[in-house]
């Protein structure tokens, strides 16, 4: 084993143990924020596969987030399934429904696809609001905490381990997918659909796979969101939330492995940092987004590189 590789392993080991120890040392509120951060990371890592790597725009990620949250909560409340079964069911529900919305992507892309996913998000949101018998409408749903035998995961600290471990697993999976044949197919698809087809890549198949993966990630994150907050409300899954997810990956750095984490951290911490200026939150988000699109189109992750280039020139 080379020295570099050894150092790398030690580095990641330290990071991992820091994260595992976090709930023991940190304040409850910070643990709660970390939970939200990891949930946002899961969605944005999934969305990054679809948008950043496979090049398909989606304005409907909050709908899948919501489908996961409602499916897993309702499985627990109405049927009495344990959380450990409800969560994957929520993920599968999202992935299943994404087939429906992935199908138009075979025919359309770019602007058209943005419109389809946007309309899809709005329809799902309206169903959440109006199907009162099932979703309890705008009163929201109280999600029970997961249980393992006698132990109830009711504190933020205990939920943290569930969320963190699943997130870690999903990040590794995403990384492996992107390094596999499938991941390479995604990237070539983004660069040129015609060229990919000419080397025998089945466009339709890989577009649908990308859609399903991102929907699966978003839905699982939705299930985790439901237990992290113990409460879900249709407003959590509005179009604006979809836009925030998109903001995360764009500001972080589209099509990079680590960009989504930066974006997720930024958008989890910003609302807290704004505090009193809460009513300006959306406005500030939008200005940040606009500025970053115009001045830093490749995302925050490239900021150090850009700065270095500028200083070298000077």
């Amino acid at each position: 084993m080379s020295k570099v590789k050894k150092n790398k392993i030690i580095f990641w080991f330290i990071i991992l143990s820091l994260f595992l120890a976090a709930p023991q040392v940190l304040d409850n509120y910070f643990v709660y924020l970390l939970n939200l951060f990891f949930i946002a990371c899961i969605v944005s890592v999934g969305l990054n596969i679809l948008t950043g790597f496979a090049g398909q725009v989606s304005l409907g990620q909050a709908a899948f987030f919501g489908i996961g949250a409602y499916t897993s909560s309702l499985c627990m409340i109405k049927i009495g399934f344990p959380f450990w079964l409800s969560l994957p069911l929520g993920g599968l529900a999202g992935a299943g429904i994404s087939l429906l919305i992935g199908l138009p992507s075979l025919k359309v892309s770019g602007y058209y696809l943005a419109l389809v996913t946007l309309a899809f998000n709005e329809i799902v949101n309206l169903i959440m609001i109006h199907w009162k018998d099932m979703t309890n409408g705008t009163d929201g749903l109280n999600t029970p905490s997961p249980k393992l035998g006698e132990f109830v995961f009711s504190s933020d600290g205990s939920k943290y381990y569930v969320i963190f471990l699943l997130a870690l697993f999903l990040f590794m999976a995403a990384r492996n997918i992107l390094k596999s044949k499938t991941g390479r197919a995604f990237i070539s698809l983004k660069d040129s659909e015609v060229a990919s087809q000419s080397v025998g890549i089945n466009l339709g198949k890989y577009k649908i796979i990308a859609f399903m993966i991102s929907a699966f990630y978003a839905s699982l994150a939705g299930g985790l969101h439901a237990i992290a907050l113990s409460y879900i409300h249709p407003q959590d899954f509005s179009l604006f939330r979809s836009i925030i997810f998109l903001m995360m990956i764009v500001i972080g750095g589209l099509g990079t492995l680590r960009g989504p984490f930066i974006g997720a951290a930024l958008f989890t911490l910003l609302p807290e940092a704004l505090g009193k200026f809460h009513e300006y939150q959306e406005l500030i988000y939008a200005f940040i987004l606009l500025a970053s699109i115009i001045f830093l189109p490749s995302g925050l992750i490239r900021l150090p590189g850009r700065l270095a280039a500028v200083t070298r020139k000077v």
Partner: protein
Amino acid sequence: MFLQVVFSGIVVGSIYALVALGFILIYKGTNIMNFAQGEMVMISAYFGLMYHVYYKIDYFTSLILTILTAGLCGIMLERIVCRPLLKSPVMSIIIATIAVSIIIKNIARLVWGPIFYPFPSAFSVTPFHLGKVMITPKDIGTIVITLILLGMLYYGLQHTKIGAAMLATASNQKAASIMGISVKRVFSITWAISFGLASAGGFLLAPLVSITPEMGDIVIVIFTAAVLGGLESLTGAVVGGVLLGIISNLAGFYISTAFKDVVSFLILITILMFKPSGLFSRGAMRKA
């Protein structure tokens, strides 16, 4: 009753048509899908409110002032946001215009708050009967103003130099610039006209609904109207707008008012899934 519902559908639909037309102008002319078009309708309604109700300027002068203000906004937006992004991928443009729409909406929220402002119409609302249909002068006024604006736009595009330059740029930017047309200037004019149309829509829509910052949600209706018409043709946008006005009015009346919103989304998804080139086109659509 059916005819009555259809008629009021046409009245609303003519407003949709105006705004959808502006939307298509930008899309065809500059290749940018402007997600902020709905917010422009909303903020223009506030401009109208400012001119007509606060400064007590008469109805038609306020309408013209509103259109001019919005046109100026269009030019500014094109300069600040869209010109730097001309060569960017579709994704960046979508996000940038969404950011603009959020900014406009929040400015409206901060300035005017969540209050409903009623907006008076210049025309009386005392109805008269035409067969079984009740018609108010307000309805007639809305349709007539729409027709006048459409006529002006048609004349401008077909019979003026600027119109010819716009059409030329829309069909081939490179060729147009070789022929000595300043493409940048055409873009500015296109945005100005498009926002002018949106603002006229907002001004006419304001008396029908009350003005709130949420009025910009009309953008979905605009998308649907434009997609119905095929996203490529100006006539299509007008027909799509009127058609959508009628359909959503019928759905609202015969099914339920909650269904009025859903129907628009459903049409949007269905058309994009099965006939993305729109209802009326025979040719192939442009991808992306």
